[in-house]
């Protein structure tokens, strides 16, 4: 975490404060980590675009003093793709909800990863639909309660890291709001990485997920995040790990940091071959 006294206000849009987020919501911790990463990278905010979807997480673009875009549910990565392609000088960061990323926007996610376009996606994964009042998500664990799975979820949850790895993302990490010291480092790495980066952050929604699943208050939920995760060899290569080993032991850390041709570079190569270079 940023040391006490470090001033993040230049990165934040004061006129939009306070945020809409409930007291204890994990989304604020993630937003703070993004601001910290922006500061650490010393980015010129004229050239930073934050493109969000719809949901509690989707509100994040409003809180950054940047080029901010609050798009439609699930489509943020498609908007970001057009934006980044015509203006590659922008650093494009896409905060997404788990519903945004894994349900309605799943198609855009896998294709952005496949193309390896230089965008940083940050999934605010609270295992539930916060904004609409606690409905089940494709990330809700089996047996978890939501307003649309009052008897417990019978669907297996998507593992967003596995999904991103399989789809071809070249920087893939997972952390939690408990691990607030590692989070800015992973986000900094993701932004710096040239290619499609995905950072999944396990976040807490005390208002719905916490209440419906009797997980207590926000501090209890942070401890729950700690207890259900297991640190990979810190920021090293991903170890072989079986699905069984992962139960109750969800690995966190940096799973992949690899080089592969980036989409816009590839496109510019095509333009050069076609003689369209300016």
């Amino acid at each position, binding site marked *: 975490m940023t040391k006490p006294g470090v001033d993040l206000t230049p990165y934040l*849009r004061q*006129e*939009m404060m306070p945020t809409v987020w409930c007291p204890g919501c994990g989304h604020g911790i993630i937003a703070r980590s993004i601001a910290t990463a922006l500061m650490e990278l010393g980015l010129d*905010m*004229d*050239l930073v*675009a934050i*493109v969000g979807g719809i949901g509690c997480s989707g509100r994040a*673009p*409003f809180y950054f*003093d*940047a*080029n*901010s*875009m*609050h*798009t*439609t549910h699930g*489509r943020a990565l*498609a*908007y*970001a*793709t*057009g*934006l*980044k*392609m*015509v*203006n590659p*000088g*922008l650093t494009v960061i896409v905060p997404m909800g788990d519903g945004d990323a894994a349900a309605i926007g799943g*198609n*855009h996610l896998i*294709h952005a990863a496949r193309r390896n376009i230089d965008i940083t996606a940050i999934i605010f994964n609270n295992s539930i639909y916060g904004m609409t009042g606690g409905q089940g998500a494709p990330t809700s664990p089996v047996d978890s309660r939501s307003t649309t799975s009052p008897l417990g979820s019978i669907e297996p949850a998507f593992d967003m890291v596995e999904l991103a790895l399989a789809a071809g993302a070249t920087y893939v990490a997972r952390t939690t709001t408990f691990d607030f010291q590692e989070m800015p480092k992973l986000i900094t790495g993701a932004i710096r990485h040239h290619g499609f980066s995905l950072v999944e952050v396990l976040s807490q929604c005390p208002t719905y997920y916490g209440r419906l699943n009797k997980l207590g208050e926000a501090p209890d939920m942070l401890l729950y995040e700690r207890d259900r995760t297991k640190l990979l060899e810190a920021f090293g290569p991903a170890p072989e790990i079986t699905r069984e080993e992962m139960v109750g032991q969800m690995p966190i850390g940096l799973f992949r940091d690899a080089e592969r041709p980036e989409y816009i570079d590839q*496109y510019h190569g*095509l*333009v050069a*071959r*076609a*003689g*369209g*270079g*300016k």
Partner: protein
Amino acid sequence: MRLVQGNEAVALAAVHAGCNFYSGYPITPATEIMEMMARQMPKTGGVFIQMEDEIGSIAAAIGAAWGGAKAMTATSGPGFSLMQENIGYACMTQTPVVIVDSQRGGPSTGLPTLPAQGEVMQARYGTHGDHEVIVLTASSVVEAYRMTVEAFNLAETYRLPVILLLDAVLSHMRENVEFPDVPVRQRQKPIFDENFLPFGPDAPFVPFGSGHHTVVTGMSHDETGLPKALAGQAVQRILQGVAERMRQDAREITFYREVSLDDADIVLLTFGITARAAREAVGLLRADGLKAGLLDIQTLWPFPDWLVQEKTANARGILVPELNLGQYVMPVRATIAGRCPVEALGRMDGELFTPEALVDAAKKLAASVEIGGVAHD
């Protein structure tokens, strides 16, 4: 002079208009636009991307517009339906973007290779919430070229999505054409200071990266772009302002053609591909002694009620043939308000109207309003 396909004309016109971003997903009968753009964009330093679906295509085009591009996407019915939510986003965020819908038979998969005009109302009202859009259409290859350039120009002027409605026949038809030199509205480098209101009246479009930290949101917002208190009133004020500007400029933004309207008793009011048969029908009807005329409307929306009023002031009957079950006839009827009969003639079987079918319908209409001198057969 050279032989050019309708879809090819659209792509060439887009390049002429300064289009430097194309996103799309293949669909008959619009695919050739995409295939042409896949060749044209890299050659001209623009961006081409084949997206994963039409939702992604329109979203990427809007994102590209905010990146500073003149952006276009093209599709047909099924894809146009998928685009609707995000077309509304472009309306709400006052984003210039051009959407081509080459209409095929519907609903659903319908008749993929055959023409229709089923999206007249969808183009106007397809997205949820009330809003303004501009919808253009064309009936020849050279007009498809001209209207594509005008679509880009209007999108720039009014900061709106502009929809160009073609159909399967026009898209695939080849005609010998000499392209006209349609003037292009160039985007000026925006000038703004710290008091700049990105969504203020007549505000220039300031793309991302220009230095102003704009907030773009589909939520109701005020002139600053922020979803503040009273945003409902603010967005009503902003969108009504756009509508008012278009109303004031109605004569400049309404494209149409007319044939023999001065003394016409019976007016054929058509749009798009149907105008071709209607032109011939007017000649046949005149030869038979019936004073017929043609009003071929190319700017479908905003609805040019003033034009319909002016051009049909002396008409005793209006025939509205369209390749649907009666869509554009609705605003025409509302405007005429009973002054004379307004007859709908619809078909959605994938066939075009023949001039003879229009002649028959016009004669029946003439007879019903007791216009003499007509040879009835």
